[in-house]
């Protein structure tokens, strides 16, 4: 139906029409019961080792005090050689990393080159600074490119930090303690994986917003090893998604086999035209 009060096509991008309404509604409720966005309340960590980068994350997503997702995937794909862990508002990290991945894919198709981690960091920084922290995405980007192994962290206001080991999220202080103690330059792969696992474990133990399983993603020059889950929680429930009965549940009383007699009536051979 054609409306007479629409005089221009609406601008694309974020729409702030409901902001005034929302602030008026908040006043009505007297400071409570407004819907809270799904936060990931997380522990994420990253470590640069001799041959590449190891990223680790827990798998719990919370919505204020309720665990909303026990199997949340917090390590997002950006490019074949770059992965990103995201903490903060779940939808924001998801969409921001998807946009980054699309932009880097367009770039690598246009130029024929593999994207570099520093390009992803710059794109994220510009995007997040433009929105002045309203997009709640705390991200750890790690990857291996032609210039080496890199690990960056990007804050919601667009701040960038480049260090060999990083943690973010609500459990970051506990995990950072483990990394500060155990990190050495040029670690071996197994030691690096164990270090990240212990760091995420410390975050899970000390923070209510982190929990359930631990995911690990190892990025090297040869390829990516996304181990999900690397370590399952001891308190997982054994609910199965499919309820199929094992063969042998119903006892077999009698069995009768009647072979079908088939006779060849007509046989035609047609040559396939492979010209």
């Amino acid at each position, binding site marked *: 139906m*054609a409306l007479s009060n629409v005089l221009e096509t609406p601008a694309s991008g974020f729409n702030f029409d409901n902001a*005034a309404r929302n602030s008026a509604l908040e006043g009505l409720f007297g400071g409570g019961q407004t819907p809270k966005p799904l936060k990931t309340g997380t522990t994420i960590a990253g470590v640069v080792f001799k041959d590449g980068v190891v990223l680790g994350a827990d798998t719990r997503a919370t919505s204020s005090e309720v665990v909303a997702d026990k199997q949340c995937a917090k390590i997002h794909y950006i490019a074949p050689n770059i992965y990103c862990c995201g903490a903060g508002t779940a939808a924001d990290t998801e969409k921001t990393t998807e946009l980054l991945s699309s932009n880097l894919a367009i770039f690598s198709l246009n130029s024929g080159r593999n994207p570099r981690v520093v390009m992803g960091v710059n794109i994220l920084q510009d995007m997040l600074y433009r929105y002045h922290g309203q997009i709640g995405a705390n991200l750890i980007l790690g990857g291996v490119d032609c210039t080496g192994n890199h690990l960056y962290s990007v804050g919601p206001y667009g701040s960038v930090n480049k260090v060999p080991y990083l943690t973010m999220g609500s459990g970051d202080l506990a995990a950072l303690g483990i990394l500060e103690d155990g990190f050495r330059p040029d670690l071996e792969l197994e030691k690096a994986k164990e270090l990240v696992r212990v760091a995420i474990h410390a975050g899970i133990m000390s923070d209510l917003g982190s929990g359930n399983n631990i995911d690990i993603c190892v990025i090297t020059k040869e390829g990516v090893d996304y181990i999900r889950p690397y370590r399952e929680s001891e308190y997982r429930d054994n609910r199965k998604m499919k309820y199929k009965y094992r063969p042998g549940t119903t006892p077999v009383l009698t069995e009768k086999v009647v072979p079908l007699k088939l006779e060849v009536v007509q046989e035609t051979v047609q040559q396939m035209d492979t010209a």
Partner: protein
Amino acid sequence: IVPVAGLCPQGAYGVQDSLRGGFSSVKNELLPSHPLELSEKNFHLNQDKMNLSTLRNIQGLHAPLKLQMEYRAARQIQRLPFLQSSHLALDTLRGSDDVIGFEDILSDPAQSEMMGEPHLMVEYKLGLL
């Protein structure tokens, strides 16, 4: 919270058109309801201004002048207001034809739920309303 002047309706004499726009309050016209509202509305304008002034300082007056002339030419060849134009020439000039941002995903005008009345939209665009 600083009052700003960019939110007033731009009708004749700056008066709110109650028939079409509904009731308004002074507060809505002076104070932005969201901290990002004003900066997002003028984002591309401000970025272009900044880039063109840097270009003028580096390369002289002719460079931004020629670019702006090309932008104006590309902006004039769109379709009528109520139809979707692809803005291909404008995107190519700006360099935004190989970048995806939130403005390509959210509130796509091609999928807008509200349709305007074509005669009114053309009259508004021509300034006859």
